[in-house]
């Protein structure tokens, strides 16, 4: 009812006008920068630029702000791959294989595949946005607290496969992550728990601190101890992916686009969940799952694709209902309202030229981002050529800035340092880190959706099995746990003590 070829063509006409093209380019450029720089995420990036757009008419202004949003998704993987600092939770799975690739001298290939995969997934999910926006918009509304809880349980069940052969250690790692996230105030009631009398702990442990600490600091500590001179294992450098790599990832990209797009429709579903699900799916479908975590190129393509598809998917509920799926889109919504544009079905009817210009500009913007990012690949990849005595201190500084900028509190930096030491010890003890990260990302949503579900159902746990969508996720979760345990039982026999290969 909303879509017509004419309107889309008009949209492209508007998006390709020199003025709009210029602002889309500016947005993509700033977005890529925002993604790469630690200390400034997409939401603060958009918020900072929001007042500057007042001199622009609404269409170019929103085109630019949207471009910053998806542009940041392109840039976000760079630090995860090159220096093992995932700037946000969604790029953690990227770091798992991306940094391994960088150490093997294949940073260029990893960066390039992440840009290509982002482009493919971004475009595929834009097709979804273009053709199915009104139909799919209500998808978001089917998700109430019980569905979110079931989804989170499914996410948590991935721990079994992320833990690899070190199942017990993986579970311990996950449960520690959960416990750490409970510290501080209950997100719903504000009640304090597990602060052990320390007032600072009331602010809670933010999962970004956990991630930066475990990954970036832990790695630097290990390198320092071993007096590493270069992070590269060898000096054979591969700047660009071979076509065969891209070809191998073709289904990976498409699958992760679909996953990312659908999960992007859900307000309140963290993009981190999406990227982990996409990563895990590829690991399961792969004929050689043991390569994952050791520099598999599919392990970079999947989360990056899913990440970008999520960001386009988020525009469906935003444009159709005015429901933002995350803080960055909430700021964008604020921008729309600043211009007196009220998102919702009415916007499609009263302002079709505006809506379609925005959607068309996103196709154009994805091309711009690809063209902008591919040539930069060589430059970013050369970072791994910097001698470690210079690179190491810089990584530490960047981590500190990244941690500080979560909430602009020094407390978060201290938490990050603590998790840096934890990450170092976990590496030594061969305890897998991915489960801890996943658990700390999921914890808040898990808790709030559980307590909301029980309030709605008046205390009955059956609600997770009587509502169809929730039931499907629960079944998937249970299935995946059982299958994971079965595979372990079949292959490993008694769990090998040392084998924590993730």
């Amino acid at each position, binding site marked *: 009812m909303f879509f017509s070829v004419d309107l889309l063509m008009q949209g492209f006409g508007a998006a390709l006008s020199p003025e709009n093209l210029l602002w889309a380019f500016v947005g993509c450029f700033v977005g890529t920068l925002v993604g790469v720089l630690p*200390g400034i995420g997409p939401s603060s990036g958009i918020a900072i630029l929001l007042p500057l757009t007042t001199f622009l008419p609404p269409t170019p202004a929103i085109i630019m702000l949207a471009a910053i949003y998806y542009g940041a998704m392109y840039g976000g993987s760079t630090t995860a791959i090159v220096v093992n600092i995932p700037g946000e939770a969604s790029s953690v799975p990227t770091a798992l294989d991306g940094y391994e690739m960088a150490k093997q001298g294949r940073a260029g290939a990893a960066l390039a595949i992440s840009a290509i995969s982002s482009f493919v997934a971004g475009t595929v999910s834009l097709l979804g946005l273009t053709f199915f926006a009104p139909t799919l918009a209500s998808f978001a509304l089917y998700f109430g607290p019980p569905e979110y809880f079931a989804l989170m349980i499914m996410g948590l069940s991935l721990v079994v496969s992320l833990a690899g052969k070190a199942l017990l250690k993986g579970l*311990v790692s996950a*449960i520690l992550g959960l*416990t750490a996230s409970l510290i501080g105030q209950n997100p719903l009631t504000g009640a304090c*728990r597990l602060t052990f009398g320390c007032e600072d702990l009331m602010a809670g442990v933010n999962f970004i601190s956990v991630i930066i600490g475990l990954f970036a600091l832990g790695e630097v500590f290990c390198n320092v101890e071993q007096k590493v001179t270069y992070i590269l294992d060898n000096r054979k450098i591969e700047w660009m992916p071979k076509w065969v790599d891209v070809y191998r990832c073709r289904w990976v990209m498409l699958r992760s686009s679909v996953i990312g797009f659908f999960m992007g429709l859900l307000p309140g579903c963290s993009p981190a969940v999406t990227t982990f699900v996409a990563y895990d799916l590829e690991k399961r479908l792969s004929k050689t799952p043991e390569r994952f975590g050791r520099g598999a190129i599919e392990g970079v393509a999947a989360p990056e694709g899913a990440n970008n598809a999520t960001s386009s998917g988020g525009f469906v509920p935003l444009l159709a209902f005015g429901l933002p799926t995350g803080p960055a889109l909430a700021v964008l919504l604020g921008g729309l309202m600043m211009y007196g544009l009220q998102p919702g079905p009415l916007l499609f009817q009263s302002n079709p030229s505006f809506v379609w210009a925005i959607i068309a500009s996103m196709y154009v913007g994805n091309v711009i981002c690809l063209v902008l990012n591919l040539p930069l690949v060589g430059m970013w990849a050369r970072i791994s050529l910097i001698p470690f*005595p*210079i690179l190491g201190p*810089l990584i530490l*500084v960047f981590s500190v800035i990244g941690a500080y900028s979560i909430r602009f509190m*020094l407390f978060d930096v201290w938490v990050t340092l603590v998790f840096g030491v934890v990450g170092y010890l976990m590496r030594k003890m061969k305890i897998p880190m991915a489960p801890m990260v996943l658990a700390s990302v999921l914890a808040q949503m898990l808790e709030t959706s559980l307590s909301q579900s029980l309030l709605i159902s008046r205390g009955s746990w059956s609600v997770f099995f009587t509502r169809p969508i929730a039931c499907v996720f629960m079944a998937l979760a249970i299935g995946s746990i059982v299958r994971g345990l079965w595979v372990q039982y079949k292959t490993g026999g008694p769990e090998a003590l040392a084998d924590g290969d993730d």
Partner: protein
Amino acid sequence: MRNLRSADMVCGACIGLLGLAVVVAAMNIPALMGERLPSKALPMLCGVLTAAGGFLLAIKAYRYDGEEIPVEWPDRGGWISLGVTMGGLIAYVALIELLGLPVASMLFVIGLVRYLGMGLMAGVATGLGTAVSIYLMIHYLALSFPLGVLGS
């Protein structure tokens, strides 16, 4: 702690004790009115699971009698480098509010680059570069990082 078995035993026991501490702390969480999921339920559950997981790990390691797997702890020099890096990092973070992010970062980078074995020139150049880029970022993007001595 030399091999993974003993390391796992120590680590498991520590995690187990941590879990017990969480259980004790969770018991003191007061109930609020109108709750279906008591405030203490999840922390309690996590505490119990942490304790169980930790002790299980320790027991499993104790009963393990396979091949001995060494843990690669650093040598003396490694411990010293690690200690200096961590100490430097702590000093750096502690000084951020006093000196400001650009200056504290500069001192930290110069110090650590030098310590890790690069020349003075390389250290100073990297440090200055860091400080200037951080300062420009803060200034032009109006981010609220502490500027310390550079702020006015």
